[in-house]
């Protein structure tokens, strides 16, 4: 059974069905969308059941000839990292759909675009040939663009254009880079390329075209991924896009799409260009640190709650990159140690998953607030919500503390491992990064204090429904998972621990000559 | 003066009569008639030259003339149709009035 193809294409089949049924009712369209979306979780669990974490390489591999003249294969495969992200997609997508359950404007088209988006994201996580990987990568932009522009807030058009053009521009550089790689090597298969890179042949072949090519290709791919993650300072598209998107789409964007960039870093950039990444890692480390610190401090200044959460995403994702860059930075230096690198990678993967959960849930909470206040979501538009809606306050509070990295909830383990790893590899960086932790606590608690505490004010001074029905169905599983993965992180770490271990054991400590100046 | 010259003189006269008619008449049908006369003058020439050729080719002149007569008949049909159309349009068939196709 082609399990991975099923995972990718069932949402698309759902989208086609919706497209083929123009007279379908709103309710039926929603249910159909939800079912197609839930398939990811179901199939992901099927994959989980027969997944062997300790087995090396990819599992459930599907490989068929596709375009023989270009040496393009239809190549899918699953390892611990992909599985983690497929499961995350499976969890976040239905929750996001439930969050947008009540939005009234043409649920058929909404569902159609959403499923298209979901399928594309899954394709990115599972494809192993650049050709269709890039198709999925770009295809995810189109539905996202329409979802933001058509269902978004007042500034949606501008935000959607900025999002689309910015990320597209980044990907264009990446496409050029891979065109160069194809010209030099004749293959676009990630596994083959990684093998070439491990033997040092990739750079050699690129350099054979022209001495300038390796750097140019590296920078092109880096730029494409950096915009997507986003790496500071390529993040300016993110706050408006997340803020203007409808709540479900914000959840998906932050929960799943932001992981595509980090995934790309781990799957493509780092295996293919270890030496170049190492050479640039001093600068990149500073940028990631900038994302950690400035992301958190910028969030402090936001009065729009969704923008605030968006900036917290910048901050959280920068931790992932910080860990990766720290490993790359220390490779071949005195500070390099295997346990610290393993901790850094494990932390990165955990952080990806946990951030997906908590940031999505946080957006959901803001969406619920927004739905009660008639679309306003300023920091000053609320007050004393905890009095008005105690259950909602409780769930939102747990979400907030999860995002803040409170032990016992999911966010802590990832952050601890990242700090443990980064401190072992680049102590000063870790020390400065704690500022980000502090600022995160500051702005989240300020948010909590202004919105939930104090006397009832603003939107909460009138009738304010507590969370119920569909909202509860969307929020409670997320919160339950926060507890689950906070207390039992081995449920996740066992999936990728062998993978991470093998990554670190394959790090080539002999780094070729640095080709970019170090700070 | 032999027969050929006589024939040519008659055809020339016929042509001139046709030309004069075509140039001087205002009635479109008469103009058409003038043109038919000129055509027939040409036909007469064909026949005459064929007939008095010292080494006549078999039936070339006659075939030419029959062709020309057929074409003239078709042309007359088209011309008369145009005349009817003009008449419908401007209630007369004065050629001077039919100037709509000017550039």
């Amino acid at each position, binding site marked *: 059974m082609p399990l991975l193809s099923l995972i990718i294409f069932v949402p698309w089949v759902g989208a086609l069905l919706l497209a083929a049924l123009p007279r379908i009712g709103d309710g039926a369209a929603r249910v159909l969308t939800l079912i197609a979306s839930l398939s990811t979780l179901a199939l992901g669990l099927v994959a989980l059941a027969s997944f062997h974490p300790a087995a090396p390489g990819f599992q459930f591999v599907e490989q068929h000839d596709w375009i023989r003249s270009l040496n393009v294969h239809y190549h899918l495969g699953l390892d611990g990292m992909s599985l983690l992200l497929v499961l995350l997609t499976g969890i976040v997508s239905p929750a996001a759909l439930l969050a947008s359950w009540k939005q009234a404007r043409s649920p058929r088209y909404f569902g159609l675009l959403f499923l298209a988006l979901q399928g594309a994201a899954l394709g990115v996580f599972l494809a192993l040939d650049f050709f269709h990987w890039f198709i999925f990568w770009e295809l995810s932009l189109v539905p996202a663009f329409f979802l933001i522009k058509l269902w978004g807030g007042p500034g949606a058009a501008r935000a959607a254009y900025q999002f689309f053009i910015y990320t597209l521009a980044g990907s264009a550089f990446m496409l050029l880079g891979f065109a160069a790689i194809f010209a030099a090597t004749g293959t676009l298969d990630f596994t083959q390329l990684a093998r070439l890179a491990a033997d040092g042949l990739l750079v050699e072949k690129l350099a054979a075209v022209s001495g300038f090519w390796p750097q140019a290709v590296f920078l092109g791919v880096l730029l494409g991924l950096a915009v997507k993650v986003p790496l500071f300072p390529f993040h300016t598209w993110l706050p408006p896009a997340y803020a203007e998107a409808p709540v479900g789409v914000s959840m998906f964007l932050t929960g799943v799409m932001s992981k595509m960039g980090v995934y790309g870093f781990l799957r493509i950039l780092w295996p293919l260009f270890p030496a170049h990444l190492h050479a640039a890692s001093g600068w990149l480390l500073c940028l990631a640190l900038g994302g950690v610190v400035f992301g958190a401090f910028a969030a402090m200044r*936001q009065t729009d709650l969704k923008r605030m959460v968006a900036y917290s995403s910048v901050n959280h994702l920068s931790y992932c990159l910080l860990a990766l860059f720290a490993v790359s930075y220390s490779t071949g230096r005195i500070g390099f140690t295997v346990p610290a690198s393993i901790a850094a990678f494990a932390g990165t993967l955990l952080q990806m998953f946990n951030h997906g959960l908590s940031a999505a849930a946080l957006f959901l909470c803001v969406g619920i607030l927004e739905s009660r206040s008639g679309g306003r979501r300023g920091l000053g538009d609320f007050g004393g919500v905890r009095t008005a809606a105690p259950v909602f306050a409780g769930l939102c509070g747990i979400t907030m503390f999860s995002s803040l990295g409170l032990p016992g909830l999911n966010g802590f383990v990832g952050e601890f491992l990242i700090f443990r790893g980064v401190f072992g590899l680049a102590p000063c960086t870790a020390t400065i990064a704690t500022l980000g932790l502090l600022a995160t606590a500051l702005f989240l608690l300020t948010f909590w204090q202004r919105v939930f505490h104090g006397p009832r004010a603003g939107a909460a001074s009138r009738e304010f429904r507590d969370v119920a029905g569909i909202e509860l169905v969307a929020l409670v599983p997320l919160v339950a998972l926060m507890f689950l993965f906070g207390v039992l992180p081995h449920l996740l770490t066992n999936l990728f621990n062998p993978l991470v271990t093998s990554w670190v054991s394959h790090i080539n400590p002999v780094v070729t000559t640095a080709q970019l100046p170090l700070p | 003066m032999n027969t050929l010259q006589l024939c040519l003189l008659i055809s020339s006269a016929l042509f001139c009569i046709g*030309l004069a008619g075509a140039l001087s008449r205002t009635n479109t049908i008469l103009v058409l008639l003038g043109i038919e006369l000129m055509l027939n003058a040409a036909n007469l020439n064909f026949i005459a030259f064929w007939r008095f050729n010292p080494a006549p080719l078999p039936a070339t002149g006659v075939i030419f003339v029959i062709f020309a007569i057929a074409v003239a008949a078709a042309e007359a049909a088209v011309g008369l149709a145009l005349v009817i159309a003009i008449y419908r349009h401007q209630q007369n068939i004065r050629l001077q009035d039919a100037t709509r196709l000017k*550039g």
Partner: protein
Amino acid sequence: MTLSVQHLWLIPALPLLAAAIGALTPSGGRTLAASAAIAAMVAAFVLSCCALVAALADPTANLTYNFTWFDLGTGAVRLGWLLNPLTAFMCVMVTFVGTLIFVFSLGYMHDDENFTRFFCFLSLFAAAMLGIVVSNSLLFLFVSWELVGLASYLLIGFWFQKPEAAAAAKKAFITTRIGDLGLLLGMVWLYHARGTLLFFDGGAGVLEPASLTALMVSTLSCGLAVSTAISLLIFCGAVGKSGQFPLHVWLPDAMEGPTPVSALIHAATMVAAGVFLIARIYPLMEADYHHHNLPIHALTVVAFIGAITALMGALIAVAQNDIKRVLAFSTVSQLGFMMLAIGVGSWVAAIFHLLTHAFFKALLFLGAGSVIHAAHHEQDMRKLGGLSGPMRVTFLTFAVGMMALAGVPFLFSGFWSKEAILHAAHAWDVSHIPLYFGLTAVVLTAFYMTRLVAETFFGKPRSHAAGLAHENPAVMTVPLVILAACAILLSLLAWPTPWLQHQLDPQAHTEPGGLSLMMLSIVLVALGLGAGWALYGRLLRTNASAPDPLAAALPRLHAFLAARMMFDELYAATFGRLSNGLAALADGLDRYVWGGLVNLVARLGQFGGLVNREADEDGLNAGFDAVSRKVRSVGQIYSRAQTGETHGYLRVIALGFVVLVLLVMLGGVR
């Protein structure tokens, strides 16, 4: 009956279970939530006693039970439980005092609509605190540590409708988190250096000799031993949690919570956690002590921070008017004493003081709560007074607590524990400054406690609420009586033989205390009491607005102290501004620099498009237009030939024919 170390987790798990029950109980289920919480605490107390029996069977043994939390690489992240006398004594103290506070809360919070939630948070707090105590792993300790922070956040902000309470809760969380970041860094450093965070692990734990030697031998480029640096970072966490200078600012504000919370946070648990942490990792703190060529020793820093805190807290307490704030600053001061004790090398004295202080400070806070409850939430002691008559039980028990805190000799436990600390400070060979600070604080403590009792209980009621006050029901007074009894009976731990000391640290040889130092401190206590009585007891305040005698004598100093030495203002002006500035910078960078750059690129693109369009329209298109215009005008000229007059055409044809004929005839065309 004993409790084996494998089952030690039951002690924190029971209150945690009660917290879960409380969280899921709807607000109507008061009885369920409260009884679950109290039953869990009682059960935990019984288990703790069993654990104590087990621990005292062999006081030198560190019984451990370690297990894997999750695999990481080829190794694993491991956690564990640790049972030794320190653990057991803390467990007994926390569960015992906790139970009494829970019972007291039944009465105190009786009318609150969020009654069930309160017991949920209290249980969570107790569970987290017990988690700290039983942990054999710095990581699990940190987890519980942060949960204690969360629970205190929830409890301090329990009356979250009040903006001050919400602000105080946030302040407490943020301030302690600053310290916790140091702790986090210390922890990851330790983990990085040793590959484990277990305290004891059959020779491989971080507090065992092999590890300590390794940490002490390696030094940093600045000359500090690694162990010193790690110790100091971990100490940062303790500074935050235990309200030490300079992170003490959250502690007085935490009084915004309900009074039982104040008792729980300030007496038995949260603030004690920092002292406990340093006592737990004492071998690490002490590792660098015998190295003389190091620039600084971790314990020296601890001692001076403790001494400064002890003196500062006592000074500020003198000028406060809110009962709970006086007690809060007295807590700050007493915690300073404990840190001082650890710093000068006697963690046993610190733990002894921690235990006695837990009882008498809980007693004082609950007594204050009793007063506040009776006086309809009037906390300003200038507006109270004359309560010794109507509130006899509260008064007597409060007086016991006050004398224990002030260190009235022989009968009260506070005297013995304080004596142990002063003795240790005297024996410290580095410096005597901490001793002098401590002695000054002793005078001040006796002074402000006398003032507190005199203002609150003596004289006439100075407000309507105080006049109506009457004794509280038994559910509130019985815990007071039990605590008061403990405040006296705990003297037996140290006298006539230093039993506790032997149980905690059997190796330590304690020479009999210097008699002269004891005499000196007794004199100082008497001095403090006398001065307090002279200023406040003899000339009783007659109305609420009468000036304070001390303020009349030293107005500027008093105002400075009343404003808590302006720490809040100082921090707002420095760190507050700095963080706001950073935030503004980050936001501005985004809005103007990065956003501006992106927009600039976009504008450049748009500009390129504009140029392209202009070039198309004015260059290429205009050229084509001009050519086609020319062609058309030429065509117009030619079209004049087409007159539409058929005769004209015929004429031209005729003319052409004539020309043709002429050409032929003249021989022009062959």
